[in-house]
């Protein structure tokens, strides 16, 4: 009798464990079913506002210079601007600056301030604010500056309208760092009530719940089309689809294909890119991947399109080197098919390398990234077809960072590598022999030389060409088995339009508008 009771208890336990998986969903729905303070989706269309779901709360401090999480930068992109700002095409256009000039030798940058730019608190943007913002990010009195690349600045000179920045040595990519937010000097509440110059101004924040932005009517450029945007935090992935369907939120970025397929006709699914280089990264000094032929064999054995079809429902862009298509300027399209799927050729290469019967290998995958686990699952099967026995080893994120990324104790791993800013250098410098973040131990003298040349040249076209040669070098020597740039699926309620994807991780809402 007692044991029966025990069995019953355990069954109940299992059931409740299974139910907690979806329990959050119904709760969330009850508290945010579209009839709350936000009003229904229809009412929001009348008042020209939207609610955007985000997966996690922002950093505790909203100060843009101190922001750490990509999710914070993504949202606050709407509030802040730098001297220049990125465009969806990947160019940099003047923002707080009206125009700029770069000297022939690329060591002197001269900016002319735009007239009539005001902060959200009504104060005009003065030169001292600009200098303050740049010097704050370049300040190295407490160790590394907030933006390390700014340590190249040797002097900053300014008068009321022009700013001249002089560098120690030429850096053709320096401009991309001047997207740093321009903040008012002597404003103490940046962390809680941020003030910038962007198309939206910060209104309020409720921790763990929402962030409210409103259109900034005195914006210098094309004003935002929506009157108000509320970012609502929806941490439970299960309740997300319900929140969208019930009308609690109108938009969500970074959906999974399963979530996207559950949304009905009320939504349009926009497909952009995550701007990541997803690959089977190979430790180039570990057996047997220190043999180039083995690495090439793996490239031939992997069918990128099948991975995209099976694990990602066909969403995703195949790639062939450490560059993703959104970087149009640097992306080399023909590298994608450099190794076509050819298991026969893979077997031949393995035989040439001395592994006619294949070998065993381990793929280390961080257990919190389902897309990478799914990719590895397909990889295991594809490799099995050419006689390679691959085993997936799941590790938690902390262990991945320390074992794989920092200590380089791994054979292979599936991960997505992103670019920290809009430069090719951000993706390619890591594979130079001595780079701290060269976690695959790629050693190639030609590659290092190409990188040196690219840094030394002041000619943009020549530099672009050198970067492309670096990409080709990675592909030809099969540094990694490149797979894809993951798709970024954005759900947008029907009746809304104008969302634009950027080649970096931001969510620009200034162009979103109701069509009717």
């Amino acid at each position, binding site marked *: 009798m007692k*044991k*029966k009771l*025990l*069995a019953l208890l*355990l*069954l109940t336990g*299992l059931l409740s*464990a299974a139910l907690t*998986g979806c329990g959050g969903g119904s709760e969330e729905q009850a508290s945010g079913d579209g009839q709350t303070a936000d009003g229904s989706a229809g009412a929001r269309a009348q008042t020209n506002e939207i609610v955007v779901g985000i997966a996690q709360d922002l950093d505790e401090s909203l100060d843009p210079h101190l922001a750490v999480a990509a999710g914070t930068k993504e949202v606050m992109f709407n509030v802040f601007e730098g001297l220049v700002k990125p465009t969806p095409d990947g160019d940099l256009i003047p923002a707080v600056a009206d125009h700029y000039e770069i000297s022939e030798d690329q060591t002197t940058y001269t900016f002319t301030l735009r007239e009539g730019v005001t902060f959200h608190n009504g104060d005009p943007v003065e030169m001292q604010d600009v200098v303050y913002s740049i010097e704050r990010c370049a300040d190295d009195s407490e160790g590394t500056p907030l933006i390390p690349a700014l340590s190249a600045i040797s002097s900053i000179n300014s008068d009321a309208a022009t700013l001249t920045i002089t560098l120690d040595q030429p850096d053709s990519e320096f401009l991309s760092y001047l997207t740093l937010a321009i903040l008012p000097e002597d404003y103490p509440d940046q962390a809680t009530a941020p003030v910038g110059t962007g198309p939206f101004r910060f209104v309020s924040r409720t921790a763990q719940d929402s962030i409210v932005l409103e259109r900034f009517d005195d914006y210098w450029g094309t004003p935002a089309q929506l009157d108000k945007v509320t970012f609502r935090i929806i941490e439970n992935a299960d309740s997300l689809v319900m929140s969208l369907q019930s009308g609690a939120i109108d938009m969500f970025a970074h959906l999974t294909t*399963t979530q996207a*397929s*559950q949304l009905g006709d009320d939504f349009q699914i926009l497909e952009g890119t995550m701007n990541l280089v997803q690959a089977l990264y190979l430790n180039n000094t570990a057996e047997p991947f220190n043999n180039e032929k083995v690495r090439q064999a793996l490239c031939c054995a992997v069918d990128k399109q*099948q991975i995209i*079809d*099976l*694990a990602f*429902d066909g969403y995703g862009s195949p790639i062939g080197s450490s560059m993703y298509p959104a970087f149009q300027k640097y992306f080399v399209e023909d590298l994608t098919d450099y190794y076509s799927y050819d298991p026969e050729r893979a077997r031949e290469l393995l035989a040439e390398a001395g592994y006619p019967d294949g070998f065993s290998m381990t793929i280390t995958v961080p*257990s919190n990234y389902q897309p990478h*686990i*799914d990719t*590895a*699952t*397909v990889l*295991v*099967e594809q490799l*099995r077809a050419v006689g390679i026995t691959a*085993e*997936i*080893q*799941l*590790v*938690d994120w902390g262990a991945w960072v320390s074992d794989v990324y920092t200590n380089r104790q791994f054979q292979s791993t599936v991960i997505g590598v992103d670019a920290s800013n809009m430069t090719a250098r951000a993706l390619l410098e890591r594979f130079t022999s001595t780079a701290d973040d060269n976690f695959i131990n790629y050693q190639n003298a030609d590659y290092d030389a190409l990188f040196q040349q690219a840094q030394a040249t002041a000619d943009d076209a020549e530099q672009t060409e050198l970067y492309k040669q670096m990409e080709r070098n990675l592909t030809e020597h099969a540094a990694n088995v490149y797979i894809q740039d993951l798709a970024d699926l954005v759900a947008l309620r029907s009746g809304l339009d104008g969302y634009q994807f950027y080649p970096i991780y931001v969510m620009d809402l200034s162009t979103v508008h109701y069509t009717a």
Partner: protein
Amino acid sequence: MKRRAMNGYLLAGLVLSGFMAALILLGLVWTPYDPDALMTGAKLEGPTLAHLLGTDSFGRDIFSRVLRGAGTTFLIALSTVAVGAVCGTAAGAVTGYFGGVLDEALMRLCDALTAFPSILLALVLISILGPGNKYNVVIALGMVFIPSFARVTRTAFAALRDVNYVKSARLMGASSGRILVRQILPNTMQVLLPAMTIGFNNAVLAEASMSYLGIGVTPPDASLGYMLSEAQGMLASAPWYALGTGGAIVLLIFGVGLIGEGLQRRGGEVA
């Protein structure tokens, strides 16, 4: 010892478990499809004659994976019970028979272990041993199961410590080891066997929960728990996936549960 009667529970349990065991054995040597083979053109198909339980999101045949996965789950559960039962019985026998300080110390340790929810304890052990390895799952679960076996056998050994046939054996000069194994152990079977069947069921559920939480079996290996966690995300679009996998877990547990119930009732009739 008089021959004990078969009862309905035992019979039904043996038939059902026999059926499941046959399926698992079949899965070891033959499955309709390669359980890991991916089929691009056959993603998430409903049950058909070709795919009895449909296909999953990678186009793998779910029936084949259930056969193979039930085997994995069964093996893990069996090894877990073996670890728990052997260690637990040993601890229970020693503490129950000898008593004293060792008894106090070991039983308080068991109390401390049982104070933690079992899944939580297993999670802690897994994170110490390192996740993603099914042998570690067996060790972690087995350790979690030790206290319950120790408790059950300790009670039985303590009760039988001073019965006449044990006293006689002692007088005849039998060693303590011989008394424990040859005299007392066979007579504890009627409490030990049901405990093992319940333990087995708990182990199946625990393996399923741990794989469900992503720390048990690593993909692409099939296990019922891991498959169930995959199926959960597609409950609306592919209900057959969760039903087929969950059904297999239910049948596996139900069969062994019936055997346990039958054994217990049979024991009751005798006592």
